[in-house]
């Protein structure tokens, strides 16, 4: 994206990416009992995408796919309880005893958070796509925009 590449920035962003992804995943799962949650996880992921875009490591793509899947997940989680006669957005809680990990307690709030994450990342990717310089970006385009049109 940027015209002058800084090898230091590029290397450190490359190195930080897996770490940031891990943090993002942690925030997503930790949200129920500790600080975190879908929104925070999405922001961390978004920050990773932004930095990588800035360093020219990737293009801001798949915004539409992220947004659509996020909205779909959220709406399905919202409506699904109606099928069982529960009120809208009633969240189920399930506990699983897994070996090694012990008791895992989770519920339908988790997919809801995943949907939120997808929407937040989608928004950030869309912003990056909108901000990216049309002159320097590839006119043939791998971006979602060109694919849609």
């Amino acid at each position, binding site marked *: 994206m940027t015209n002058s590449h800084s090898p230091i920035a590029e290397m450190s962003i490359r190195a930080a990416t897996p770490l940031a992804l891990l943090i993002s995943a942690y925030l997503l799962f930790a949200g129920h009992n*500790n600080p975190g949650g879908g929104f925070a996880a999405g922001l961390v992921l978004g920050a990773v995408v*932004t930095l990588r875009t800035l360093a020219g490591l990737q293009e801001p793509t798949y915004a539409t796919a992220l947004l659509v899947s996020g909205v779909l997940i959220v709406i399905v989680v919202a409506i699904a309880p109606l099928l069982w006669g529960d009120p809208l957005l009633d969240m189920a809680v399930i506990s699983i005893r897994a070996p090694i990990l012990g008791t895992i307690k989770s519920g339908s709030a988790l997919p809801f958070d995943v949907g939120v994450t997808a929407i937040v990342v989608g928004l950030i990717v869309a912003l990056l796509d909108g901000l990216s310089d049309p002159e320097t970006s590839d006119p043939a385009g791998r971006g979602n925009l060109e694919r849609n049109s």
Partner: protein
Amino acid sequence: MLLSLFAIHGLGIVCSALAGRRSMKSGLIAAAVAPAITATWAAISLSRGDSPAIFEFAWVSDLDLVFRFRSDGLALLMALLVAGIGALVFYYATGYFKADAPGGNRFPATLLAFSVSMLGLVLADSIWTFFIFWEFTSITSFLLVGHKHEDAKVRMAARRALLITGSGGLVLLAGLVVLAQELGTTNLSELSPVSGTAASVAAVLILIGAATKSAQVPFHVWLPGAMAAPTPVSAYLHSATMVKAGVLLVAVVGPAFAEIEAWKVAGLLFGITSMIWGAVGALRHRDAKLILAWGTVSQLGLLLTLLSFGSAKATYAAVAMLFAHALFKATLFLIVGEIDIRTGTRDVSELGGLAAKMPIAFISATAAGLSMMGAPPLVGFMTKEAAIEAALGLSGLDQAVGVTAITVGSVLTVAYTVRFLMTVFGPGPDIAVLPRRAAMTIPAAVLGASGFAGFVFVDAVSSIVGNAAVELNTEANVYKLIPWPGLTLAFIVSLAILTIGGLFGAVLSRRTTAAPPRSVGADLADVAIDGVLAGAPRFISRVQHGSLPAYLATMGFAASSAAVPFVWAMSLDHLTLWDSPIQAVLAAGIVATAVAGAFVESRLGAALTLGAIGIGVSGLFVIQGAPDLVLTQLLVETVIVVGFVLGLGQLARRFPPVSEAWKAVRIVVSLVGGLAVMVGLVASASKPAGEAPIESLTIAAVEEGGGKNVVNVILTDLRALDTLGEVVVLATVAIGILALARVRKTESMV
């Protein structure tokens, strides 16, 4: 029963649209079924004297928004006219249009849609039901007037009709809202007299709405233009049914305004002016259809005049006239359509000698014309007698005004009718006439003969009209239509009217009228409409100027002004300086950064100061012990700053210079915005609502949400609906950004 009528019509609309794809004729035949059934039902109900059927469907019952229909005597009479004339008009149209005429897939279905709208209007028993169907008739009328939409003049006429009746509809809505407030009910059959200023305002507003629909001067200008519609439409909508809606409205809500002087005075003004000016217009025009249209304006004026007097006898006469007018005016329109098709012209100066060439049409037209003049032995005679009797029965000034107006109006009516009949059917140029089409002749003959039948079966007509009038005025049931009154004063007046008017009309018909003047009113209406259309882009370009900073300033100022009411809610009683001195340090840092940010000249510097402020605020959250907020705030700031870096890469390093005035505006807006937030915060802190519900929320979070992070459980479970709404907003914003980006990319590629 009432609901099934609407179902039949709905089915009919679908069927006629489908059948109309094959040909205009099959569409029209399919469309005729529903009105025929309805007319039969109405006739049977009337003859049996059924007690009113009621259908009610509550939509929002708390707001009294209900669909309510009631088939009382008046509604049944109107339904009989609407559906009966409707069925005949559909049959007539099969002759009027060529079998393969274009528009078969839409014309019959639209005309039937109008028919059911009108049926809903006459059966409506709730103010809102009435209004909804009133608007439906305006819209379907627009579509029908604009049937030949390839013609620019037709489009203009349709637009004028829609905008005048549509604006009238808005005025009417305002009036109905006030009336419903005053009455405390929306039920049209439970009206009680209202009085006071608000009621007077409602009365005038409703009257204006009615005047636009019923083409009363000065709102009549749309009606002659609407004659651009195919003749079946003119006969049905613009003489027999839709234009009666205004009069019907005046009749129905009249009892509520019985004590209001403005209602009567304004009604008389509209009515008498229209009665005279409409008749004068009918005398000035040469197009047979326009003569009839102006005659309709005049006749509706007479109806409005009678209703405005409000006496039981005048109400009875008005209902009788309304019935008679629908019959004879529809007949005449149908015959003009037949003449138009068979001779190729409607100009009375080119027509003549049709008595011998179109004998059946001649007989029907004469019967209808005599009925319109008020000559015996026809139903129009009895109703005109009733009107004169009613005027004579008034007292004082009312009597003088009523008798004079009705006499003058009737003389002119006789004159234009005689002129119409003599110029069309009397001696004149020898013109070629196409062969007769049964589908056009029969409906006109049936309607024409009904005027005579009404005279013969006077008792039946009399009781039907009486049952209808009694819905409007409980004292109206003592009156009767009298076929042969003997030498009463009213009869003498009638004879005088016929003689003078007849002579006048005969003289006028010998003269060739110069080409009629252009309608100044219609031109004015068009100029006004064009003016609005031309002014709209200029107005829009002022408001939507395209300057983003100016939009932001406007929105910021508008949003800030929402804080004004909170100024009075502020109190310093509960405010403390700080919870911990570190807050003061942080706050000082934030304020200093903000001030510095205002003076930074480089864009990147400004973005960084914003980030610094955000991080400072998250420091405040740390002190308050809100780790979730801190986390989110920090992440948001990070993403924003990185995003800024990305976006600023394409902009100049420094802010562009701005003019001093604009700078001042921006400073003011910023200060107002800052003050607004401060006011809002102080006001919300001024009224502590007791202890925060931490305890109950924590328990709820663990028990219902199964999580220990209260904030997050609130977001994903307890108040998940809010979150759902928020993320949908986020997604919408993102889609907007993508769309904008797409536009820009397309532009940059070109």
